[in-house]
């Protein structure tokens, strides 16, 4: 088997995550989907690092994780404060882009 399959898997997961972001209304779930996408990327990176035979890919993945952690912390904080203010975690409610 060729490690390329890992890439295919990553692509699949990424697409699924993206779809999730688009179809779910619950902010938390949307966030999870984003995490899923990030993880897919990480998988791709790891696979790449194996294909190229150096560790840079893993480093990037590592950084991705760190950034993901930061992003999750902030994001969840936002969700919580939003929930406090409007007692709902629905993306559509939060969106007031149109006057």
């Amino acid at each position, binding site marked *: 088997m060729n490690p390329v399959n890992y890439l295919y898997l990553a692509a699949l997961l990424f697409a699924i995550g993206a779809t999730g972001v688009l179809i779910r209304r619950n902010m938390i779930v949307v966030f999870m989907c984003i995490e899923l996408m990030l993880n897919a990327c990480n998988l791709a990176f790891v696979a790449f690092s194996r294909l190229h035979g150096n560790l840079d890919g893993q480093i990037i993945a590592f950084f991705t994780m760190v950034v993901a952690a930061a992003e999750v912390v902030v994001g969840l904080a936002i969700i919580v404060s939003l929930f406090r203010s409007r007692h709902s975690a629905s993306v*559509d409610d939060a969106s007031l*882009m149109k006057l």
Partner: protein
Amino acid sequence: MEKLIALLVAAPLLGAAVLLCGGRLLDRVGHWLGTLLAAASFAVAVVLFTDMLGKDAEDRSLHQHLFRWIPVEGFQADVAFQLDQLSMTFVLLITSVGTLIHLYSVGYMEHDERRRRFFGYLNLFLAAMLLLVLADNYLLLYVGWEGVGLASYLLIGFWQHKPSAATAAKKAFLVNRVGDMGLSIAIMLMFTTFGTFAFGPVLGAAEETGEGKLTAIGLMLLLAACGKSAQVPLQSWLGDAMEGPTPVSALIHAATMVTAGVYLIVRSGEIFNAAPDAQLAVTVVGAVTLLFGAIVGCAKDDIKKALAGSTMSQIGYMILAAGLGPIGYVFAIMHLVTHGFFKAGLFLGAGSVMHGMNDEVDMRKYGGLRKYMPVTFVTFGLGYLAIIGFPGLSGFFSKDKIIEAAFAKGGAEGWILGSVALLGAAITAYYMTRVMLLTFFGEERWRHRATASPEEPGAEPAAETRGGPGGHAEPHPHESPASMTIPMVLLAVGSVFAGGFFSIGDRFVHWLEPVTHHDHGDSPLSAATVTGATVVVLVVGVTLAWFQYGRRPVPVVAPRGSLLTRAARRDLLQDDFNHVVLVRGGEHLTRSLVYVDHTLVDGVVNGTAASVGGLSGRLRKLQNGYARSYAVSMFGGVAVLIAATLLMRAV
């Protein structure tokens, strides 16, 4: 000497400027100032005249070049004057009659608080008229031409609070503008044909020019003349112009301005000589107007309108004569001068009568006035005799010559024109006699009758001063003050002797010959025959009138009258025609155009705007404000981009 020419125009112009711009402080002396300047102009004219008599016939014409007016490439217009015998004649007529009428107005307008302005306008008119006859090129003539139009507009509408006056003034100006259009087109034609529009070159080159062009120019000039001289079909304004003060009617609408058309045609004689068709048109117009005016004159009960009709018909004579070519030019001018005297006199007389009758203008409410205003009666009577061509008086000579010339035209035309002229003479005799009888003879129909019906308060100052209900009480006919009678007397003298003076030894003919090149046509009838005929028709006309108005008492309320009479009362339906065709049509046209402008032209634009607005409104719906749908579009966009890049890579 040449330097003096400008003074002729400058004096009255100065007067106009001072009187119109000067404030109320001029109110007391204004009228005398105006009269003085008019007189000054007359004096200058006399000086120039004597000087001119000193020279011999050929080199009498003076030229003065003031300054270059409009220089553009080939188009070189100068402000330059030309004083030859023809102009001289006019200058003398204008300044003399003008001065007299200034004098008359001093008394006539005594009680009008806007007298200063009135004299300003009169001076303005004099200046413009003199400019008209002194100009040495058509463009400058055009300036004077419109100038007199403006002056007449201002003077007809002098009593602006009367809507009828304002309307009449507007009408006069508009109809004149139509004529002016003709003049300006004529000038353009001259420019394109000759490359200039100064009298000398144009008339000099008239010979070697295509007849078509000349005919066109001639017809355009004729149109102009029709407008200014109230000839058919542009005559309709003259009757209404009688709304103006009587001196104005005398000066502008009888003696001077309305004869400008004749001047124009005579001045452009060479052009007409080379364009027979145009000449024929001129004669036709003259003949038609001659009868038209006469018939109208017969039907009018308003004394001034009757005189206006007569003016029309007399000018018809002149135009007719001018259309006859070298045979007639001289006599046209001669009749013009004599007519200037006696018609002015008649108008002044009419003014004096109205002055004494609380501005009553309906002759049917006059009668037997000779006892009350003898001077007026005598002067008016002399003018009357002159106009009907009583042997020995001015009108006799001039009109007689014109009729002769008409016959002398020769051929069928000659016969037709001649007989028309004769018929005109008869009708003239008829309606003037009618006026005379109605006004000064018969029983006193004004007794026990209020005049100047309250519906239309008297416009003439006399009534205003009497004012109030008294103004409509029974009139007390009385003679007018000296300032009014003196001019009448002088004019009467002129109207008696001028004709004889001119025609003794053909003075006038020789005087004008250098300009108008007189030649005797070959008349099928001898001069004696024509004279006899005129006298006969004169007698016929007078007796007819006497049978109708002299013997039987005249009904105060006009009888219904025949169809012709009723038509004639309405200026032979010319106004109605104009109203239906031009006014109504114009109103409809403008109204529909306004509508079109709003809906169509503007609508297209607004429509575009509206459609764009609607479209964007629809597009707005796409922006539903839900983050997720935006996300979808973004995601889709990314996908498309990636696909695109991949395809690029692939191919």
